[in-house]
């Protein structure tokens, strides 16, 4: 139903990008939100849903980020870049912390982010993590077809579950014959 889908999308969006309501914090959020993923520089930490909170108090800024994967080595760089961008903007006493809960999901990736990802040559996650979690259990997992980011063919196959970074798997297109990365559903 359209209304249900719309409500769900709005709920996920609110969860994915919990922008602060006060003007001072929102201004700092907008600055922190410019930081990009060092591995996928077309995506900002806001597109990813990695930016969790920005709170400006009298003389300090507290930022929380959440890792995409537990061992993601890009987190240290994102953390440093948030410190850098806020410090450069004149903020003092910037503290960046990592939080694990609620656990990050690809459902939080913005539609703009997904479009930028495709443009960059990486297939965006298909379907929802919640669907994956409640899907049929069995030795053979059921997958949605992944569209080639170059030629849009659905005639693609997975070469390997794991790709160049934790968050991606490796695919090849059977029509244009190019390999490509797929940002897998988590």
């Amino acid at each position, binding site marked *: 139903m359209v209304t249900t889908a719309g409500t769900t999308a709005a709920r996920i969006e609110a969860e994915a990008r919990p922008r602060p309501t006060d003007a001072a914090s929102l201004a700092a959020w907008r600055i922190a939100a410019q930081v990009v993923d060092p591995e996928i520089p077309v995506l900002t930490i806001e597109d990813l849903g990695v930016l969790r909170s920005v709170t400006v108090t009298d003389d300090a800024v507290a930022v929380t980020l959440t890792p995409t994967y537990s061992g993601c080595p890009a987190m240290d760089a994102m953390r440093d870049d948030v410190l*850098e961008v806020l410090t450069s903007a004149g903020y003092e006493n910037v503290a960046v912390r990592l939080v694990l809960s609620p*656990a990050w999901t690809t459902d939080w990736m913005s539609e703009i982010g997904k479009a930028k990802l495709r443009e960059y040559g990486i297939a965006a996650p298909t379907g929802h993590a919640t669907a994956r*979690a409640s899907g049929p259990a069995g*030795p053979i997992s059921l997958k949605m077809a992944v569209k080639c980011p170059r030629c849009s063919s659905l005639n693609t196959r997975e070469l390997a579950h794991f790709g160049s970074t934790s968050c991606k798997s490796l695919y090849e297109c059977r029509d244009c014959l190019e390999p490509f990365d797929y940002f897998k559903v988590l």
Partner: protein
Amino acid sequence: MEADAPAQTPEDIHGHVAVDVTTLDAELIEGASVATADVAEYALWLGDDALVLAQQLGAWISRAPELEEDVALGNVALDLIGHARSLLHYAGTASNRTEDDLAYWRTEPDFRSLHIVEQPNGDFAHTIARQFIVAHYLFELYSRLRASADATLAAIAAKAVKEVDYHRDHSTQWVLRLAQGTDESRRRMITAFSDLWPYVEEIFRDDPLIDRLEGIAVRPSSLLPAFDAAIAPVLAEAELDIPSGFVASGGGRTGKHSEHLAFLLAEMQVLTRAHPGASW
């Protein structure tokens, strides 16, 4: 980085940000509480399993049967390092030790890892059999630990379970492929399961610690039915029998280890011990 390092130019965008491992450790988890001695011991159990297994898998990089597997096993190891960091950091809050301190400066009897994660990589089939057993166990464990009364353990588990689900899938596909591949690959898969199965019993062994952590820890024996139910259809499809007979002595949870762990630790810890405090 030196405290009195000269100021960097703005062009060097990472220049003036000190990447201080100790600072990052302390800030890993927002509002992380201090673990009690028992919770810390339990976090060591799980953290050491993840750390030892990650160290083993890392050894495959550049040696796997194909490039994609170098990448896959490296990625699985990276996820496990992430879990180990969170768990060891939390364990360290009880004794005021950092995750690196626990990883690099404990000796063999102080490790709490299970014997199965200490078993050598062997051939690729042995590594896959070990992954298959451990990933299925960890999936059932973390699925339940999400509901732990301990908020930090619950948060780590909620994150880890999604990653372990991929590890489970990866090893399942390989078990099917090797068991149904050539005569040689099938022979090796059967040998691998028969070599590793003696170490399965220890995974599901209860301990007085678990009694003291009711509602916080997951009782290992309670995971066995779900583990059996999850692996049965895969083994049936692969036409593999569960090996029977010999059960290894175990004892990893109380610091009694197989002969393999000391060699693994020697390699993992040598750099830190040769150059204490070194960083780059």
